[in-house]
C-alpha cells in the first residue's frame, strides 16, 4: 500500500503543475490589469509602475511563469497579494485551517446524518419516516447552498423578530471571546461553526442518505444476509454487522467524489456566513484580479481534492478486503 500511496503522490505533482500552468495562463489571458483595482486619478503613473514591479507584472509572461513556479516549488512562496498588501502565504496559512475545520465538520455532518437517515429509511422501507425523509432529502439536495444559508440565517441567527439563537457570522464572539474560559471558548467556536457547517453538510447528507438507503436495501436482499437471518441473528446484528459494512463501500467512493463539491461549496458558504477561510479568499482574489492569490487558492483547492480522493481510495481498501491497492 505504501508504494501505491507514494506513486499516487508522485502522479499528483504533474497534475498540480498542469493545473497551475493552465490557471496561470488563463488568468493572464483575461483582459484588464490587476493594478486597476487602484482606479484613482490621483495616483502617480510611476507609483503604479512600481506596484507592477513589486508584483512582478512588469516582466514578460514567460519570466513571470518561471519565477512563479520556481517560487512555489522551491520555497513554497506564492508571491505578494496586490489587494491584501501582504504575502499570499500569510493569508493562506490563516485561511486554510479555517476552511479545513469547516469542511471537516461539514463532512462529519454529511456522513453521520446521511448514513443514519439512510439506514433508518432502509430498515423502515415505505414507512412514513421513509417517505418523509425522501421528500426532505430531495428538498435539501435541490436547494442551492447560498439559499439554504440565508434560510438558516433568518431562522436561527436573528432574521425572525430580531431574535437570534446562533451567531450570524465569523468564528468567535469578537467582543467577549478574550474574556471567556477555555470551555466557553470551545462552546463559542462550536456555535459559530454550526450554521455554516450545517449549510455545507446538509445538502450532501441528503444525497448520502439516498445512496445509503439504496445500497442497504440492495445488500439486505443478498443471500448471505438471508443466511444470517436464518441462523437466528438479530435484526440489529444483521443490519449493522453484515449489511452496513458492505453497503458502505460505494458510499466511500461517493464521499471521495463529493470532496470537490464540498470544497467549492465553501466559496459560497464562507461568503454568506463571513467564515474567514479559503472560499472567501478565492472570491476576493477573483473579483480583485489578485493573480498571485488566485493561483495559490486554485493550487491549494486542487491539492485538497487530489488528497481527498487519495484518502477515499485508501479507505476503500480498508473497508473492502477484496480491494488491494497496488
Amino acid at each position: 500500500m505504501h508504494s501505491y500511496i507514494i506513486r499516487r503522490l508522485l502522479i499528483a505533482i504533474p497534475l498540480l503543475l498542469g493545473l497551475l500552468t493552465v490557471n496561470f495562463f488563463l488568468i493572464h489571458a483575461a483582459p484588464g490589469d490587476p493594478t486597476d483595482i487602484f482606479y484613482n486619478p490621483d495616483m502617480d503613473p510611476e507609483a503604479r509602475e512600481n506596484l507592477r514591479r513589486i508584483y512582478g507584472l512588469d516582466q514578460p509572461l514567460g519570466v513571470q511563469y518561471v519565477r512563479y513556479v520556481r517560487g512555489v516549488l522551491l520555497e513554497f512562496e506564492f508571491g505578494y497579494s496586490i489587494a491584501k498588501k501582504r504575502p499570499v502565504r500569510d493569508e493562506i496559512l490563516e485561511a486554510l485551517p479555517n476552511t479545513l475545520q469547516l469542511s471537516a465538520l461539514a463532512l462529519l455532518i454529511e456522513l453521520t446524518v446521511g448514513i443514519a437517515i439512510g439506514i433508518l429509511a432502509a430498515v423502515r422501507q415505505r414507512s412514513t419516516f421513509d417517505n418523509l425523509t425522501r421528500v426532505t432529502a430531495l428538498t435539501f439536495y435541490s436547494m442551492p447552498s447560498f439559499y439554504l444559508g440565508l434560510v438558516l440565517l433568518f431562522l436561527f441567527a436573528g432574521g425572525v423578530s430580531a431574535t437570534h439563537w446562533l451567531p450570524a457570522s465569523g468564528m468567535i464572539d469578537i467582543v467577549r471571546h478574550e474574556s471567556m474560559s477555555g470551555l466557553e471558548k470551545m462552546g463559542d467556536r462550536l456555535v459559530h461553526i454550526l450554521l455554516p457547517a450545517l449549510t455545507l453538510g446538509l445538502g450532501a447528507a441528503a444525497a448520502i442518505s439516498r445512496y445509503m438507503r439504496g445500497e442497504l436495501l440492495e445488500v439486505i436482499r443478498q443471500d448471505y444476509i438471508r443466511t444470517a437471518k436464518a441462523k437466528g441473528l438479530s435484526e440489529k446484528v444483521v443490519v449493522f454487522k453484515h449489511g452496513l459494512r458492505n453497503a458502505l463501500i460505494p458510499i466511500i467512493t461517493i464521499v471521495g467524489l463529493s470532496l470537490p463539491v464540498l470544497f467549492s461549496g465553501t466559496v459560497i458558504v464562507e461568503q454568506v456566513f463571513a467564515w474567514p477561510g479559503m472560499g472567501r479568499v478565492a472570491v476576493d482574489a477573483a473579483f480583485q484580479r489578485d493573480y498571485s492569490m488566485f493561483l495559490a487558492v486554485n493550487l491549494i483547492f486542487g491539492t485538497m481534492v487530489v488528497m481527498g480522493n487519495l484518502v477515499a481510495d485508501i479507505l476503500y481498501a480498508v473497508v473492502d478486503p477484496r480491494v488491494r491497492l497496488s
Partner: protein
Amino acid sequence: MPRIARITLLIFLLAVPSCSSPSTSTDAPDAPGQRLIVKEITPDRGRSEERNLEYEAQWDEFDATPHDPGDALVVGLIADADSLNPLTLETKNAHDILDLLTLSLTHINPDYSSAPSLAQSWEFSESHLELTFHLRDDVYWHDGVKTTAHDVCFTLRMQQAPTTGYPNIKDKQYIKECIVVDDFTARFTFDQAYPYQLFDVVDGHIVPKHILEAVPDGEMVTAAFNRNPIGNGPYRFKEWKAQQYIEITANEDFFAGRPPLDRILFKVVPDQENLVIQLRSGQIDFMERVPPRFYEELSREEDLVAHIHPSRSYTYIGWNLRDPRFQSLKVRQALTMAINRQEIIDSLLLEFGDISKGPILPIIWAYNPNLPDFSYDPEQARQYLAEEGWKDTDGDGWLDKDGQKFSFSLKTNKGNQIREDITVMVQDMLKEVGIEVRPNILEWTILVNDSTKKEFEAIMLGWSVNLKIDMTTLWHSDSISDKYNFVSYSNPEFDRLNDQAVMERDEKKARQMWWQAQEMIVKDQPYTFLFTDKQINFIHKRFQSVQMETEGWHYNLPHWWVPQDQQKY
C-alpha cells in the same frame, strides 16, 4: 481627522446611496468648502489661534460632559481593510479606521474648515511660499516615542517618493520641501502660491519616522507595518484578524484625554443581508451605507437610530465622443432629456437621492446652482434627434440615419445592483424615443480596461467628488491620452478656464470661473449626470453624542459614549 476623499471611483461602494442630514442643507449655495478657501487665502496666526481655542473648547466640553467610560462599539464592514499604513492604504474602510489611530496635522471640521490637531497653529509667510506649523509637544506614538517635526517632514518625503506608492502623491507635487525648524516646528516651502497649499500639506496622516525609516520606500507597499501600525491618535491598534475583525482600544495617554468607548471592533461581514440581520439582532452596533431598500424595515427597530447625510458621489452615463453619433451636441442633450432621472431615483433610491446636474455637487463650495438641467422631455428629445437626421424611415420603431440603426451598448460593472437596474430602465426609456440600448454588465477590471482603451459606446460609472476642485484629470483635453478622460471631452475654452481657476487664490474669482466651467460641461453633456445619493447609516440608540457628517461617519467618534446603565459589553 477624517481624510478628504479623492476623486476616486466609488463603484464598489455604490450600491449604497447617501445624502443630506436635516442639519446639513445640500442646497445652500455658499455652504461648506467656501470657508476653507477663505481661511487658506487669508491665513494668519490670529485666526489659527482662534480656531485652536474652538478646538480646545470642544475637548473641554468633552471632558466636562458626564460621559461614562466603558462599553464597545461593533462596526459592521462589508470588506476588510487593505492596509493601515497611511502611505499605502487605498480602501475607504482602512481610511476610516486610520482616522481613529493616527493624527493628521489638522482636523477637518464638518464645515470642511481646518482645526488644530497635531498642529496647534500654523501661519503663512508674507510671500505665501512658506507655511509653518507649530506642533503640540504632548503627542506620543503608541510605543511611547514623542511625535515631532521630524515625523512630519519624514512623512512628506515618503509621500513624495514615487516608489512609495502613496495614492495621493499628486497633492504633494507643488510642495518643495519640509524643513525641521525645531522639534515642534515644521516649515513647508512652495515653488508658487496657490489656493490649496494648506489643503495639500495637511492631507494624509503622519507616520512614525523611527519605525518606517528602516523600510526602503520601494518596499513600503509590503511592509509589516501595514498590518501592525503604530499611531498617535485617540485609539490604539490592538489586533487584526484577516477577514474577521480589526480591534482598536482607547488610548489612555491621548493628549486630549481618554476617549469614553473602551474598544471599537470592525467586524468584516461580506454580505449585506447578513449585516442587516446582525444589525437588527444586536450582533453589530453600526452599519454604514445601508441600502435604501432596508431603510423602512430598520426604521421600525426601536433600538436603532438612522443618520442620513449627503454623499459626495454621483452616478453618470458617459458618452464616447470618438463615436460620430455622440459627437453631436443635440444628440447628447436629447439622450439626457429622454432619460427620466427622477423615475430612476424614485424606483431605486426611494427618497434617498437627487438629480445631479453637473460635475460638482451642491454640498461643494464651487457648485453652480443655476445650471441648465435638461429635464425629462421625450418630445423635445425626439425633435433634437430628428434635427440631427435620426428618424424612423423604415417604420420598424427604431431611429435610423444613412441606413444605420441608432443602437449602442451601455457598459457598467457587475456587482452593483442599482447600476444593473438602471441599465434596464434606460433601455426602456430610450426605446420610447426609438433608440436601442444593449446593456453590457462587465467584471470590474474588464470594464476599466475597456474605458482605458476607450472601447465603449456608453459607460455608466460613478465619481466621488473632491473638495479640492480641479477638473483637469477628468475633463481637460490634455487628459484624453490618460486614463480618466475616457469620454475624450475636449473644449479649449474649458481648458483655459480650468487652468486659471485651479491657480486662482481669490475665492470670488475662482468661484466665478468654476461656475462658468460647470456651465460649459453641462451644456456639452459629455456625461448624462444621473443622480447624487444620500448615505444612510444606522446605529444602536445607546450611543450618545453621535454626529455623522458627509466627510466621515466617524467624524466625532472619540466623543461617543454610553450611559453606565445601558452599557452592553
